[in-house]
């Protein structure tokens, strides 16, 4: 069958799976007073529609930051504004200032789910991936489109991760096809949508810098560097424009994006700090500042080898490996990581397939997880350790991710500098 037909069928399957998942309930349904992520998104529509831009990120009488205050970059806010305008055409009650808190109705749910589905920007990106051969293409496509993690979080729980992930994917594709400027633009937009994309920022930086370096920093390389820098700076400026006029605005937005006061981690997350906390209570032992420096330092150390290698050998394959390593390193060591951030690393990982190691790891993970899940369902935890099973699951997962980090770093670093074979994967 023609490629376009297979790809379209895969896309339709992905969309069908998403819509059927969205039939279910969303995060925080009927759970007053705070509700959940669904209410957060609705609230942002309310805030961006009714209040002037300068109030969006500030705590005012009309904007209570404690009730789902905006904590994503401006593009999310503009997106919410767009959705709010459409909502206003259909039913202004949905976004009425203050009065619409906790608004829930079948029609509203359909509207919110529809806004969710219409952001499937990343879907066409898969159609034009030139690096996959036909059969791998269809099976890889299905894997990515039907990836349960993203479907459940976006279409079930309710979030808009697909937008930033999609933009980031366009960025990667752009770079892969040699359209550096378009790729940079796309990634800048991704970053301006969700700050989580910082996990992928370093590889973009080193890859493009290395590429310019290879072209010659005095000639073509310099021109490319200037063009890329201009593209990035102008796109950032355009996205952040309303907040650049007043330094207080800029600082406040950054303060909202990076809530340092919230501590090293929250809840159970499968990264190093949470797992370490089981043995050594670092969250309470160290001051917040020390925690910040510690996580900053370790994250930097963790990405250092991969970044240096990418700078020295800026090929697309190296770039993809570095993306994987960077997202894993950030997930494992950085500050205030949420468990949903693992989506970024897994998303990258889905595009790599054929290694025996991965299959073995996968099998091992599945068995361990199955065992733990069974235990969580079947057994009662001891009274003194009520969170025993979630914590064990997180710790187990952390060990796996560390394993992956080690493995992918090895793969990236051991690629011989002289080999130029194009990895068709």
């Amino acid at each position, binding site marked *: *069958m*023609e490629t376009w*037909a297979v790809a*379209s*069928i895969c896309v*339709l*399957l992905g*969309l*069908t*799976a998403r*819509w*059927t*998942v*969205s*039939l*279910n309930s969303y995060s925080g349904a009927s759970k007053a007073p705070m509700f959940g992520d669904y209410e957060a998104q609705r609230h942002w529509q309310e805030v961006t529609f009714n209040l002037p831009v300068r109030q969006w990120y500030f705590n005012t009488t009309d904007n209570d930051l404690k009730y789902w205050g905006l904590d994503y970059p401006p593009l999310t806010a503009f997106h919410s504004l767009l959705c709010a305008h459409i909502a206003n055409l259909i039913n202004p009650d949905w976004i009425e200032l203050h009065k619409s808190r906790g608004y829930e109705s*079948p*029609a509203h*749910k*359909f509207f919110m*789910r*529809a806004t969710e*589905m219409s952001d499937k920007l990343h879907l066409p990106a898969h159609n034009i991936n030139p690096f996959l051969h036909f059969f791998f293409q269809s099976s890889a496509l299905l894997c990515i489109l039907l990836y349960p993690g993203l479907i459940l979080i976006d279409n079930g729980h309710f979030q808009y991760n697909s937008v930033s992930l999609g933009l980031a994917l366009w960025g990667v594709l752009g770079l892969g096809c040699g359209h550096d400027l378009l790729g940079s633009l796309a990634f800048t937009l991704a970053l301006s949508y969700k700050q989580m994309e910082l996990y992928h920022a370093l590889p973009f930086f080193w890859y493009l810098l290395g590429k310019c370096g290879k072209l010659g920093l005095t000639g073509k390389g310099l021109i490319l560097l200037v063009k890329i820098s201009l593209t990035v700076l102008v796109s950032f400026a355009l996205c952040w424009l309303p907040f650049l006029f007043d330094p207080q605005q800029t600082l406040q937005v950054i303060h909202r994006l990076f809530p340092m006061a919230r501590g090293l981690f929250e809840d159970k997350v499968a990264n190093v700090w949470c797992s370490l906390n089981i043995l050594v209570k670092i969250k309470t032992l160290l001051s917040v500042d020390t925690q910040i420096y510690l996580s900053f330092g370790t994250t930097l150390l963790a990405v250092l080898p991969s970044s240096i290698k990418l700078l020295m050998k800026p090929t697309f394959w190296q770039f993809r490996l570095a993306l994987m390593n960077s997202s894993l390193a950030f997930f494992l060591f950085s500050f205030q990581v949420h468990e949903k951030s693992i989506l970024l690393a897994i998303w990258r990982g889905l595009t790599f397939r054929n290694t025996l190691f991965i299959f073995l790891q996968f099998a091992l993970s599945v068995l361990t997880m199955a065992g733990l899940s069974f235990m969580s369902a079947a057994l009662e935890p001891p009274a003194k350790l009520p969170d025993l099973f979630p914590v064990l699951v997180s710790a187990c997962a952390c060990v796996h991710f560390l394993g992956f980090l080690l493995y992918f770093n090895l793969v990236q670093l051991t690629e011989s500098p002289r080999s130029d074979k194009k990895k068709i994967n």
Partner: protein
Amino acid sequence: MAAPRDGTLSWFLALTLGVSLIKFLLIKAYHSTDFEVHRNWLAITHSLPVSKWYFEETSEWTLDYPPFFAWFEYGLSHIAKYFDEEMLVVQNLTYASPATILFQRLSVIFTDLVFVYAVKECCKCVQGGKRPRDILGSPSFVLAVLLLWNFGLLIVDHIHFQYNGFLFGVFLLSVARHFQGRHLEGAFLFAVLLNLKHIYLYIAPAYGIYLLRSFCLIQDNSDGSLKWRNFSFIRLAALGIIVCSVFALSFGPFLALDQLPQVLSRLFPFKRGLCHAYWAPNFWALYNAADKALSVLGIKLKLLDVAKLPKASMTGGLVQEFQHSVLPSVSPLITLICTLISVSPALFSIWHRPCGARGFLRCCVICALGSFLFGWHVHEKAILMAILPLSILAVESKDDAGVFLILATTGHLSLFPLLFTTPEFPIKILLMLLFTLYSFTSLKRLFRPECCLINTVESVYLSGLIPLEIFCELIYPLTSWQQTFPFIPLLLTSVYCAFGIIYSFFRLYGILLRGPRYTTKRKSH
């Protein structure tokens, strides 16, 4: 012959698991009153003795399927009690706790395994022309997808709520057995099927003629004509014993209880109108539409007196008897005569010129379509009875593939009004696109060297389905007419689709009488 064993099981399993995933995801979707119908039958068969099953009237959804289905519900009820015992109380009308919904949905998904097995058997019976280079291009694979992922079956069973998968499984298994030459098993399965859902009486004539002609008559003359001396009474007797014992098992208890008239009146409720609340896209839909149009025209031209006309409510969505205004009224007897006239040529054809199991299957499709087009109180879901078996013929013959594309697309679109809720709207669009896209591209690829499967006129007609759908579901509800004339979109959909279905009916007849062109020569058995 059959597809190679290696790899066969894996892709079939993948297809089954994939569609099962979709079915599980649809558990939370909208369900129609049919859900309550089946819950009520679970309650009736579980809580009441057999003697009361066909008399129970607490709920308006009285038992109107044959006894085997009642026993099937009885069996299910014993599992149901572990989910939620309250659903088995007859007085709990419209009871729909989460456990009840889960149980009922799961029961449909699991009984679909019968359908899965039947599809596997059918796939073994189809052959490819050239040896396909890849599994994805083989007729077996295409047939498996067309059947397992059939749009109509998915939305009728797993959203609207019915047990058609299970029933079509028995039907297709019976067909597969006939293809494999195991005619007694096929006959037995069909007898069982009739006692599960009597709508399959539509195709009983095809079975009867085929078995008499091709099974009881062992060998023909060298010129293909009848040789009555070869009539095997033993085979006829075997068939008779099988069929009679099945019916005896089914109706026996009710015969003993002297309840047969009551059971039959439940099975054949002719008090219902010519058309269902939503007109199935058949001949009578066109007849009704013409009658309406003529009466409106007559009133406008002052040829008719408004006061003398019966109150127009055929389109009111109620299931009652009504008279036509201008054209002569239609009674159940007339529809029966029309149906018999429409299918007789096909039956004669397989009697005088038997084409083996494939000819029989084509006759089944024609009988199903004829009964759909001219029957009394036909449900639009009955179109599946023609679409599913036609899939088998479609992967082997270019002509059948062309008809299948028209019939399936039109028939599936006519099912859209069944799902009128907003959250399900995107799902039905996506699933329809999926199935239509796949059926067109895969069948085109299957018969690649030959030219297009459908011609320009047919393409234009099918393309017209898109603006029709957009108008009916998106534009019309926003107009003021939605309040005053809410039936217009339904009328338009069924009238438009009726043309496509009637056209397919004639095309199929053409193929039957002309003789199909297969991709390879095969001997008929």
